[in-house]
């Protein structure tokens, strides 16, 4: 049997559109497929989603596997897992990628378990390479290197699945870059027409509440973040003013959000948003590992903290030991002076 070479992406649908993370993964899938000599596929599941196939083709997909019916309008684990497991069986790809969204992290492990294959979550990089298994003495070519942080962000691990196919990985939004779309590009469409047992639909959606997007931290060039050290909501005004002055967005640590200083939408960190701005100013933030995991790849990190032993000073490029209530107004004034 021929070695699988295709790279497929689960095309997650959000608000009637293909999720950005899925489009980013299609770009990466195209690179990986080129190295394997295979094609790019996408799995599209939902109701009345066929028009989205065009978006997928334009972002590099060669073949869309489509499963469309009213009962699949909203994501639910059991029916989506069944459909996807069957589609993967038919398509036989080398690699399947999922966005590490709440849906992706609900679905991908269920599928990996059903197929008894390996899955690596939250990959920060994907490459193709060889692997020598020392125990078995066997060398594998063209494996997917699944690279990710672990241990609370303290180590980077490279994981491979030598024997099982497909190799599966989930990737967070913003990690892979979306290539420009090619308008008018086409591909093939394969329809899934398998039967779905009524028992798969035993979970009912009662209520759905979509929060308004308050802030887009991912696209910010500059982020000024406040932590528990800011103290109170009034002082958070300082954070806002500095962010505004520097042309940036307001971020926050989990501690600040938990203390009620600011809305969760501004949270940066492992359970918040991962950001990569050119400049990250951390004010009154201790620099705990989960916060660091969400901003450590920022271009330049400036830390302001009155505690000289705060862990953040170990990885900030510029460390200011001082009272943010004095430092921030000074920075605002100095910036305005220098900007003239």
């Amino acid at each position, binding site marked *: 049997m021929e070695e699988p070479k295709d790279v497929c992406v689960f095309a997650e649908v959000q608000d009637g559109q293909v999720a950005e993370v899925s489009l980013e993964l299609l770009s990466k899938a195209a690179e990986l497929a080129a190295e394997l000599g295979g094609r790019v596929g996408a799995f599209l599941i939902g109701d009345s989603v066929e028009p989205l196939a065009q978006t997928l083709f334009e972002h590099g997909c060669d073949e869309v596997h489509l499963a469309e019916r009213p009962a699949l309008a909203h994501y639910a684990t059991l029916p989506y897992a069944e459909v996807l497991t069957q589609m993967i069986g038919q398509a036989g790809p080398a690699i399947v990628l999922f966005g590490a969204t709440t849906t992706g*992290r609900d679905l991908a492990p269920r599928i990996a378990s059903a197929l008894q294959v390996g899955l690596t979550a*939250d990959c920060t990089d994907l490459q193709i390479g060889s692997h020598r298994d020392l125990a078995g003495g066997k060398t594998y070519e063209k494996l997917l290197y699944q690279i990710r942080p672990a241990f609370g962000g303290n180590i980077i*691990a490279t994981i491979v699945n030598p024997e099982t196919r497909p190799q599966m990985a989930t990737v967070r939004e913003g990690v892979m870059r979306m290539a420009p779309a090619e308008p008018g590009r086409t591909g093939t469409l394969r329809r899934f027409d398998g039967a779905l047992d009524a028992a798969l639909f035993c979970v009912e959606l009662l209520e759905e509440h979509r929060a308004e997007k308050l802030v887009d931290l991912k696209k910010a060039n500059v982020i000024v973040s406040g932590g528990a050290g800011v103290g109170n909501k009034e002082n958070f005004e300082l954070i806002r003013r500095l962010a505004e002055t520097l042309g940036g967005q307001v971020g926050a640590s989990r501690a600040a959000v938990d203390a009620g200083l600011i809305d969760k939408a501004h949270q940066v960190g492992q359970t918040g948003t991962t950001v990569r701005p050119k400049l990250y100013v951390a004010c009154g933030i201790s620099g705990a590992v989960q916060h660091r995991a969400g901003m450590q790849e920022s271009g330049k990190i400036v830390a302001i903290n009155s505690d000289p032993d705060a862990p953040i000073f170990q990885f900030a490029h510029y460390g200011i030991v001082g009272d943010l209530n004095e430092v921030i107004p000074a920075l605002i004034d100095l910036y305005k002076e220098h900007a003239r």
Partner: protein
Amino acid sequence: MAYQIVVCIKQVPDTENLTGEAMKEDGTVNRAALPAIVNPEDLNALEMALQVKEAHGGSVTVLTMGLPSAANELRECLYRGADRAVLLTDRRLIASDTLATSYALSCAIRKTGQPDLVLCGRQAIDGDTAQIGPQLAEKLGLPQFTYVEEVREVGPDGIVVRRGLEHGFEVMRGPLPALLTVTSSANDPRPPSAKRLMKHKKARAAGELGDGAEQDATALRERDLLIEQWDAEDAGCDLERIGKSGSPTRVKKIEGVRLASEEHKRVEPTTEGLGALIEELMDEHIFD
């Protein structure tokens, strides 16, 4: 209606509290120096289980697959209100990835009986995969609810939960039995109760008893202080599906992340210091 609930817990190194001793000179973490704790979100899962039991009756069994020392973490759960503790420990389980681990746990859960609810923390702070919950649900053939922040109802019509998503939340109803993964925003886990601590600090797993283990075990069981200890065969595992042979993933390489950044500039909070910082950032075109 009483509910039989199983909570899966994991003994993890405390990666969230790095102190000086935990860091090596090259800036990487010295894992062996970190104290062991119950994975934080597993305590949220336990808290949720205890609340369901307090509202409706039933029993809470905590299960862990780990080193013999994980008996400590099981005791921590007994102090908080768990009724029964099971330690699945076996050298042949070492090097299990999430597929092999979820398989082993599913075997053990089947041996504990027929739970109505299986609860897990959403994610462990060492592996960070969040995969065990869904994989375990698939192996047990159960509907799964991940990112659960609230159980609104449990009853003859099944279970109603609120799931926290990236962009809001959703409320779903499903049948029992079911598996839930629980997030840290779900609740504030209760501390150990003094009374339960006094009693259960004497709880032991068979592997912790020295000579005369059998008599001691019987005595402990009679006093409701025995932590059940199972190996892979006790749990009914197919040995090919655990450990390295049951694990499709291989770690090819691990690199420590240097926690110290290469360039470190201490900036004085003076006009000169801050002014120089602004200039330097402007020179690097940060604000363009």
